[in-house]
């Protein structure tokens, strides 16, 4: 994107390798045909958002809170817990009071 104000200018389009890499980062299994279909779609969207680079932004702070609001502190008290069975109630697999997953240590 050609952002004025010193932002870097990354490559403007994605290729099949990039789509597969990003899908992998997002932990999304994609087939070759899905990835191929995504290339032009993503490029269309990225070309379109490219216009943001036209906007002059020196001295403009990125928005962090849309409505000014101060973060509150609450009483230092336990207000939850003791609901193990509720926490596990929707787990695809729960055993002995834990979430169960495929073996991760050989």
């Amino acid at each position: 994107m050609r952002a004025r104000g010193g932002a870097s200018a990354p490559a403007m389009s994605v290729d099949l390798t990039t789509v597969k890499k990003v899908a992998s980062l997002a932990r999304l299994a994609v087939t070759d045909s899905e990835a191929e279909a995504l290339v032009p779609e993503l490029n269309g969207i990225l070309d379109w958002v490219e216009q943001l680079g036209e906007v002059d932004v020196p001295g403009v702070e990125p928005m962090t809170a849309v409505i000014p609001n101060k973060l509150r502190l609450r009483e230092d008290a336990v207000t939850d817990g003791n609901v193990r069975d509720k926490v596990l109630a929707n787990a695809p697999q729960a055993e002995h009071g834990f979430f169960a997953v495929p073996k991760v240590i050989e």
Partner: protein
Amino acid sequence: MAELTDLTVAQIRDGFRAGDFSAREVAEAFNANVAAAEALNAFIVATPDHALAAADQADKDRAAGALKPLSGVPIGMKDLFCTQGVQTTAASHMLEGFTPTYESTVSQKLWDAGAGMLGKLNLDQFAMGSSNETSYFGNVISPWRRNDGGNAPLAPGGSSGGSSAAIAARLCPAATGTDTGGSIRQPAAFTGISGIKPTYGRCSRWGIIAFASSLDQAGPMAHDVRDCAIMLENMAGFDPKDSTSLELPVPKWEAGLSTDLRGKKVGIPKEYRVEGLDADVARVWDDGIAWLKDAGAEVVEVSLPHSKYALPAYYIIAPAEASSNLARYDGVRYGLRELPEGANLQDMYAATRAAGFGPEVKRRIIIGTYVLSAGFYDAYYTQAQKVRTLIARDFARAFESCDVILAPTAPSAAFGLGENIDDPLAMYLNDVFAVPASLAGLPAMSVPGGLSKDGLPLGLQIIGPAFDEQAVLNAGLAIEQRAGFTARPQKWW
């Protein structure tokens, strides 16, 4: 007497109080309409027993002289709000069968106010869409049809398309919606009803399945402005469980309704009058200007110079937040798990997410992941958040010279199902007038303004300064009283 299912929330509330009918009669009438409208596919799950239980309680409360604000009123609940013991899916295969063990703050407030639930309403998957065509549970069909004699199925708008279709078809008198970039206002416009997105932080996000947390805001959808005020009063309020919840008292919006706009200024943003604006949309906008003048307001031109950048900024910010929020769907804690033979944990994540998410959700996760990735973050995400600051500043400046802004809600009337689904950008452009207020966190509502030449509803949007829902509702009511919008879909379902 009119059919019970034709009544507004206020009419049901007041008629029930006056003893004109029982809450059970109301619930049974709406339950029957829900059961007879499967062709619209507005509900993912119907909950007639919930509605009847609340009605029976309301009838008891009335006998005991212990009426609540919404006693006797059954409503629809968008299936993005977690409801204890009732499947909550966000219209995704990922959450099919997910049965929350807790209740969202907004839905709990409505039940505490005496309302009952007719069912969980269909929506775009994870609220990502503008036509309700991304639901895993099938398209919602708008009850409206063009006046050309054809039967082309039309979009009810999105993402709150089940809510809009159900209200327009008299399956419920009111419903919850959520609005991230127009998801209350655009479906309201497409179906000839009203809907308001309040100031960001008015309604707790706790228990609402997250899409883009800095934008997501719940609000009501209903037949008219008064009903929106009544519903919003019973949805809003401070909640310590949402760190962005506004610690402010809930105004008495219904009691504050007034259509006397003398001394008020209505801003018309010149940048919204884009070249090629649909002639019907422009006509209804002009009508709206005339109605607000008639109500005593002065009309002034205002400028929102960064308007054209709102939609591209939104399509960086919203997918970025979505890619982070949707990382939670991992096949471990809740929802779907896909475990191919011999798969390890990483394979399981990827297979689960591939099987559970629909194409639009995947598209947005990948865009979001890309714009947040190393080397691209500043050029895309930081730049978009700077543009967002400028968009919010535009509104702040405009509100120095006006009290509310009047604009179209959407650039066209409802389109046919399938017309835009293959072109993501064409679909995204539906929200061109709705997204700026979302990026600025401002209260905004859509009210019916008239019909297109095809006989389809068109909405007018009123945007107000932060915290001033009252000004938005009052201008909306002034339009409503002058628009005389009585059109309704002919029953074909």
